[in-house]
């Protein structure tokens, strides 16, 4: 998968988690940019994305992600 494909999956998962079909993500998006994306829904999003992509983030990763781009990059490195 390339960046755009992973980003598309992330967007779909976050729309599901937040129940908001209007959300759009790009590589620079941070959590504060998305209304209602609190720390609980962040964890839900991470796990839902893991399941969707068939990967597992490390606990240190989850804490370190700042932008959606960071998540996409790590996901791609785990996808191999």
């Amino acid at each position, binding site marked *: 998968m390339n960046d755009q494909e992973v980003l598309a999956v992330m967007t779909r998962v976050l729309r*599901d*988690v*937040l*129940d908001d079909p209007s959300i759009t993500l790009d590589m620079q998006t941070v959590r504060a940019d998305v209304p*209602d994306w609190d720390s*609980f*829904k962040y*964890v*839900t*999003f*991470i*796990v*839902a994305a*893991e*399941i969707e992509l068939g990967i597992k983030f*490390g*606990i*240190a*990763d*989850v*804490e*370190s992600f700042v932008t959606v781009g960071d998540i996409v990059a790590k996901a791609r*490195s*785990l996808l*191999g």
Partner: protein
Amino acid sequence: MLFNSYEFIFGFLPVTVVFFFIAGTRSPRLALAWLTVASLFFYAWWRPVNVLIIGPSLAVNYIIARTLLGMSTGGRQPAGARWLLAVGIVFNLAFLGYFKYANFAATVYTDLTGTRFLLEQVILPLGISFITFQKIAFLVDVHSQRIKSFSFGDYCLFVLFFPQLIAGPIVHYREMMPQFHAATCRPNGTDLAVGMTLFVIGLFKKVVLADGVAAYVTPVFAAAASGESVSMFPAWIAAIGFTLQIYFDFSGYSDMALGLARLFGVRLPVNFDSPLKARSIIDFWLRWHITLTRFLTAYIYNPLVMSLTRRRLTRRLPVLGGRQHSPGAFVQLLAGPTLITMLISGAWHGAGYMFILWGLMHGLYLIVNHGWRIYGAPRFAAPGAAGPLWRSGAFLLTFLAVVAAMVVFRAPTPDSAMEIFRGMVGGSGVSLPPHVVARLPSLAGSLSTLSVSSGELERTLVPAFAWIGSLLVIALALPNSLQFTARFEPAIAFKPGPSILPLLRAQALWRPTVPWAAAVVVLAAAVIIRIGGKSEFLYWQF
């Protein structure tokens, strides 16, 4: 060696700083090696045997980290690396467990079974709780390949760096080591000025403010512990006074740590951001002992919630998402992990029932706070929620909740905590000293429950209230030390929030100028004449 001791301020610190800069003229590597050796000396000063205890633990962690580093290939870690990480974490927890909890475990065993279980008193090595957490974070970072290389020297300096060795802030390798590697190890006027200022502010908070109010707090808790009843005013003095004492003690220590690190050109993370100004318990924990909250969230709370969320998602059960949370998801994914995390936080603070009870109280507070945000606030709080009356109420409720938990944190036994609570709600009467009643004859007549007491605790009521009033003003109305020095990035990525009071305009913030230097010297003088007795930091015991 205490930061607030003559041997530290006039001996260890100047020698360490001067030789650091002298070595820096030769090479930064030499200067950093000197800093490591000086830090080891600092740690050994108290009880040299501590080095023998902590040394093998450092060696084992180094070997595990090196092995983990060797196992990593590309993006993925082999399964063996996961096991090795687990072994490392268990080793550190067992190490902490033996030194910190062996005695407590024996007490619990005795209490539960009635059989006396004799154990030789285990001595707690200084700072072991902080050192252990930091090493666990280090191993996790190496395993996750966020640390890609490190030398033995780097590792030792990271683990031993004396400003934050004993009581935090709890730092990550990745935020410290790039700074050490970039350090010029030459004197820098701004760094020295900011560092000295923060150090002196912290020293003042500890030696003058925290130790000053402690004089009124300690006798009340001692009286309650010995079974005496405590009347209303002394009970409130003890409860609020201790809250202020521990705040100024620990945030003072953190300021000193930040200041000391800055002398060497290094910034530490923010640890306190005016927590007593918080208007909710959630907010309180984002401002109080921030690096501990960060550690517990990253390494206990998040992993717990992630694994539970994973289980619920694969079973197609509702999780925390959308606009409303199902009660099942709230209980399992929010309330449960919050309670567990705060119980662990309580036990981390100290091996004893009271600390665990304190953790339990804060866990329940947080659950109520989250529950209110999710279920209550959208329904009941929409109109007027931002008004001053609402905000004051939220502040007061938060403050009282924190104070009540602090009573439990400080009291040695449940009975003595209950004695203070009974006093606070008026269950042990309201007494004033004779000299106050003599000046307020009308008051004596209007309060039927008021009694006159020339007891020891009542005798000092007036100065005690003056102390607490002044400290409340400092904690609640003034900018904190980091906001005060905000122009010079006093902590890693510190951005002063909008909470800086408008009355303190930009020109009132600290700068390296002669008038400000004079003010700092006055503070320092106030400290120096008071240092005498040995007054330990409250958090050094943890």
